[in-house]
């Protein structure tokens, strides 16, 4: 990637994000907490506004014009998401509040009705709490056993160990695509191949991959894939579950209520066809429509271009961070061209606590995450109480990385001598 292309993408997109154009403590905002949530472009805000100013009505009921428009827009967003992840059918996309809800849907609908005592669920130590806790609950309720893939020396998914865990007892593999802490990109396609050999289902937590790279669920051949909208330029309160059609069809409903029914009697009901069987109650209509707008926005830029640009930023970020000897950066190093890992860096800086770092960086206008990033078991595994994390998106620039790195150096100097 050339510098010219980098400037083109961030320069082209930054005007779409008015929130970035502000000062924090008198310094220009440098937003590097994109793995927690991304910012939202005007196109997404306008979609929300358009919906509430012109089309607001409940969906799938009523024959009046507004209801018809709202339904068309809501279902249109489903088409957009289905196309975005290359689903074979629009019926394979279920809107949820977020990725956690999507995982819980699979847990309560599929796992609870399928798993038997002694069945095995394979997770990894790098999972987000949202891909750990639901399975712990399922293990408690069904008697299934949890197993965890550990890390290689380079702090990546240990594929060999993973293969050794698989057996005919394995019923589910639930793993993250891109770790929000390590930044490693897990071989999910190969994971699906191996898991399917023993007849296990595979759920992919794609929260950190869908916003940053082209995803093709048919090529991955995963059974389920979950993502949250707010990390990919959409509002909070909307996420989605992809599931293979036959599988979703065979699953019992998750929650009961309006929208998900075909026919209701006092003592029993029949359920709606997919995907509405899994969408009980009035959905987050505006948010779903805005997710559609976000998908359209990202698609216009091009996911391959976003990914390539982020690789270039990654290369630059790691080069600049390498100038700070006190840093311990977790996860794999990027390849020479910046590929091979996500555009984020979790680190500790000598003895300076991440909270102290984050407070000092905030005074310089730099927003980074400090804490355990909802991966407490991974932090325990790494023997790190907490880490600081800078995470990038396509609107970030090399200049922002420079500001961040300079502020980081200042912060370490501020605590300087303390740990020398």
């Amino acid at each position, binding site marked *: 990637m050339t510098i010219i292309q980098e400037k083109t993408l961030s320069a082209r997109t930054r005007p779409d994000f008015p929130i970035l154009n502000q000062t924090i*403590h008198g310094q220009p905002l440098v937003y590097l907490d994109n793995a927690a949530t991304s910012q939202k472009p005007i196109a997404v805000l306008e979609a929300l506004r358009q919906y509430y100013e012109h089309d607001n009505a409940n969906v799938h009921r009523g024959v009046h014009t507004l209801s018809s428009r709202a339904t068309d827009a809501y279902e249109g967003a489903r088409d957009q998401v289905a196309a975005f992840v290359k689903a074979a059918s629009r019926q394979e996309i279920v809107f949820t509040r977020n990725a956690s809800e999507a995982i819980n849907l699979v847990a309560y609908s599929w796992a609870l009705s399928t798993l038997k005592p002694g069945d095995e669920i394979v997770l990894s130590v790098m999972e987000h709490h949202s891909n750990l806790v639901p399975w712990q609950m399922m293990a408690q309720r069904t008697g299934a056993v949890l197993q965890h893939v550990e890390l290689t020396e380079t702090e990546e998914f240990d594929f060999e160990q993973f293969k050794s865990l698989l057996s005919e007892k394995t019923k589910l593999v639930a793993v993250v695509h891109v770790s929000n802490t390590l930044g490693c990109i897990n071989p999910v396609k190969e994971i699906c191949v191996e898991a399917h050999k023993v007849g296990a289902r595979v759920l992919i937590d794609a929260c950190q991959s869908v916003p940053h790279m082209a995803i093709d669920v048919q090529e991955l051949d995963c059974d389920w894939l979950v993502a949250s909208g707010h990390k990919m330029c959409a509002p909070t309160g909307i996420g989605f579950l992809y599931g293979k059609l036959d599988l979703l069809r065979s699953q019992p409903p998750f929650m009961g209520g309006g929208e998900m029914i075909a026919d209701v009697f006092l003592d029993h009901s029949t359920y709606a066809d997919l995907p509405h069987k899994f969408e009980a109650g009035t959905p987050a209509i505006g948010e779903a429509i805005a997710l559609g707008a976000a998908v359209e926005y990202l698609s216009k830029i091009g996911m391959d271009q976003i990914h390539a640009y982020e690789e270039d930023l990654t290369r630059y970020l790691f080069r600049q961070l390498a100038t700070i000897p006190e840093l311990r950066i977790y996860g794999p190093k990027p390849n020479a061209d910046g590929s091979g890992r996500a555009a984020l860096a979790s680190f500790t800086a000598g003895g300076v606590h991440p909270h102290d770092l984050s*407070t000092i960086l905030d005074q310089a206008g730099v927003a980074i995450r400090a804490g355990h990033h909802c991966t407490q078991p991974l932090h325990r595994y790494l023997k790190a109480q907490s880490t600081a994390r800078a995470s990038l998106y396509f609107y970030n620039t090399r200049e922002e990385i420079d500001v961040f790195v300079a502020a980081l150096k200042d912060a370490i100097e501020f605590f300087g001598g303390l740990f020398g």
Partner: protein
Amino acid sequence: MTTGNLRDLYQQVILERYKKPKFRGVTAPVHRHQRGHNPSCGDTIELTVQLDGTGDRIEEVRFEGEGCAIAMASADLMAEAMRGKTTAEALDMVQRFQTMMQGKAEFSTEHRKLNVMQGVSQFPVRIKCATLTWHTLKAALEASTQPTEFVSNE
């Protein structure tokens, strides 16, 4: 880069106590034991308290744990201030510290050292760091002789 606010937050005393705490460790014997936890960041603190023969006066407080400069300095300063205090006095001080974090009070001359923590009140997201040890002490003193479950400041 470092503004006046930051200097208020990270006063020299705080940085020194963070670097060289005086009250790290475990009391001997242990009359009260309490673990505290800040779920939002994973910081933990483990307090032990030694009481006098009456069981109502603090001989010593010590702490173990991992946390930021604010949390650790707060624990160390608190442990120092608690020597010789009755349970009632200690609980009053916990209350006063919490009020100070809201920017509404400070300690009198006897405990003026604790006032170095006042700067934290200007950083609302960091108040939890400073108060974790105080919440934990309160739970320790209010508990029976049996250690209780984790106390959380959420």
